[in-house]
């Protein structure tokens, strides 16, 4: 059970790093940056403009929305001069030494599109030379349709909305864990540097202290994840509803999947916070200790998930979705891509929660033993011995 004192520590820790004015400003800035990027992409989209292209008289290519082809009577050198002077032409096509040359000022985003239009024109010309009709050429250009048929009834499909949600959760977990990483390291080692720990020990048990820390920083991680979700949602709504004029449609959300995602994500954040807390408690001085890097191990489950995502029914993903140290990231992705029986989900979650409990106890034990070493940092051997010890504190 979480004690009242742990809750006080959790509140203190959460509020220590929660500067609501700065948070608000940073989210407004984030929204402004996203808006700015969107506006920049929109305004610099060259495909919405029309370009004038000079082609030789023999080339009778039809104009498109993007390209207007003209056959000027002036010679090539004059055309190129006009191109250099940024007059009249955006590109000039010429036939030199048996091949077509496309002259432009510099590389542009619309050039591949122009080349595609010209390629279609020349292919059409060649087809005419071979005596093919337009319809035959069109048929020839179509790729042979190959459909994928999946015999595994549990597989939901390749690009399902659930998979997108699972991906979003992975990204949110990364944001949450990054937040927790910095805060836990700073909070626990900072307390040691400021010499608060011994005073706190006289008031609450190491376990109460560790529980409060883990809870407080997990809340911070969840807050970061939640606010990022809200910011993304607001941005999505603004773009889709206000800019694109579409109706708000959330029918693609699979609430069953989301219902399972939440406890896995919560337990995952708690597990990682416990692990980070345990490692941070073993660090005496963050400036000289190399242990802080180990806290980044908590990001590995996210990487593993990404590596096995293309084989949702494979043994690797199945194994990782059962392992308590990776299941919080892997199981949500697996269940979003294949049907997973509820008992498997429950068992995996139970294993994960049991590991959270063990890691929480270990964190408390490391904090106590580390403090008893009076400034001497415990070795990995010490930590392993404490981890395997069943001796009560």
């Amino acid at each position: 059970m979480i004690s009242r004192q742990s809750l006080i520590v959790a509140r203190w820790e959460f509020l220590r790093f929660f500067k609501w004015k700065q948070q608000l400003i940073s989210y407004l800035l984030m929204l402004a940056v996203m808006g700015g990027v969107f506006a920049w992409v929109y305004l610099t989209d060259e495909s919405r403009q029309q370009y004038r292209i000079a082609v030789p008289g023999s080339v009778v290519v039809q104009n498109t929305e993007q390209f207007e082809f003209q056959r000027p009577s002036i010679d090539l050198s004059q055309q190129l001069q006009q191109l250099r002077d940024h007059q009249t032409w955006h590109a000039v096509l010429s036939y030199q030494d048996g091949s077509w040359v496309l002259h432009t000022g510099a590389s542009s985003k619309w050039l591949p599109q122009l080349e595609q239009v010209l390629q279609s024109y020349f292919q059409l010309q060649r087809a005419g030379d071979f005596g093919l009709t337009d319809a035959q050429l069109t048929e020839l250009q179509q790729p042979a349709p190959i459909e994928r048929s999946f015999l595994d009834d549990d597989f939901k499909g390749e690009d399902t909305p659930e998979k997108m949600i699972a991906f979003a959760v992975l990204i949110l977990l990364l944001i949450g864990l990054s937040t927790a990483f910095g805060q836990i390291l700073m909070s626990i080692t900072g307390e040691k540097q400021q010499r608060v720990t011994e005073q706190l020990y006289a008031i609450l048990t190491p376990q109460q202290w560790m529980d409060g820390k883990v809870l407080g920083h997990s809340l911070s991680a969840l807050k970061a994840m939640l606010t990022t979700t809200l910011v993304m949602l607001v941005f999505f709504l603004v773009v889709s509803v206000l800019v694109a004029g579409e109706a708000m449609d959330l029918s693609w959300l699979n609430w069953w999947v989301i219902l399972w995602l939440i406890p896995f994500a919560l337990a995952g954040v708690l597990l990682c916070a416990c692990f980070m807390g345990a490692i941070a408690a073993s660090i005496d001085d963050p400036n000289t200790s190399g242990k802080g890097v180990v806290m980044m191990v908590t990001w590995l489950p996210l990487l593993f998930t990404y590596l096995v995502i293309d084989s949702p029914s494979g043994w690797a993903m199945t194994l990782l979705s059962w392992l308590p140290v990776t299941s919080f990231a892997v199981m949500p992705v697996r269940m979003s891509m294949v049907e997973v029986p509820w008992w498997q989900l429950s068992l995996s979650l139970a294993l994960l929660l049991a590991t959270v409990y063990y890691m929480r106890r270990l964190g408390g034990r490391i904090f106590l033993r580390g403090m008893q070493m009076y400034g001497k940092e415990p070795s990995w051997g010490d930590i392993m011995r404490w981890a395997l010890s069943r001796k009560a504190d």
Partner: protein
Amino acid sequence: MQLRIDAVTKQYATVTAVNQVSFQIQSGEIFALLGPNGAGKSSIIRMLVGMTKPDAGSISVCYQDQTFHHVPRRLLGYLPEDRGLYGDKSVEKNLLFLAQLHGLGKTEALSRMDHWLEVFELTERRHDDLKQLSKGNQQKVQLIAAVLHKPALVILDEPFSGLDPINQEKVVDFLKQLKQNGMTVILSAHQMAMVEKLADRMVLMAKGEVVLAGTLAEIRQQAQPEVQIQLSSKVPLPADWLRSLEAVTAVEMHQPEQALLTLQRDAEVGPVLQQLLGRIEPEQIAMQKPDLHQLYLNAMSRHQGQTPQEAAA
């Protein structure tokens, strides 16, 4: 509350920090642990707090018919030697946080805080971040944090260190006030003059062992059984005659007209004074009473087989 330490030993790797130490502390008294660095004071305090356990011997704390092996957290107010609070938070927030951890409600905590901030003249600084305060003022805040919840026992490890003489006096008053409020106080210190004013009983420690223990009078008796007589006259004193007196073991001539006589242990002072007054017409004659600092140095020197000057060095 009664606290009993019985033949406690604590070893760290190859160092014996505390060796067979025993003493008792009674309810409502101010008890001082004295000794040089490395004497074992903080090791004892950490065992009392429960941070470490004795390798041998026992600690028992009796409170309201219950016995504990270390001071229960709810009864304890603690100022560690290695101390600090959250520098980026205000005085009030720091104190409120610790008070709430001790189980105080916000209103009660703020009301008690008002009193102690007033006592330490820190009322104006309550909303300042702790790091903006001087080291001495930060220490006062930590003292307040240790007693805000009115603990039955207050353990203060080096409460005078880092304080100027004026603030040291304030801490003396503060500790007296705690005693008046019925709290038991254990403190470790180097500042003998402060301890002399305060402590009901004390132990002097060296290298993990108790050298002397008791009240100040008892310590005097143990550490300085020889009586010393300070003598001055308008004319030069007869040094050889003084040395020839039967009860006198040593004569220090500070000037030809001033001498310090050390008498044999258990010597009767009256006959010696009669002999002196029969031969000399003294301008001043006084029995010298050593202060705690001198007693401390004497005890240390005796324990370490050094002269008091060497012990002081």
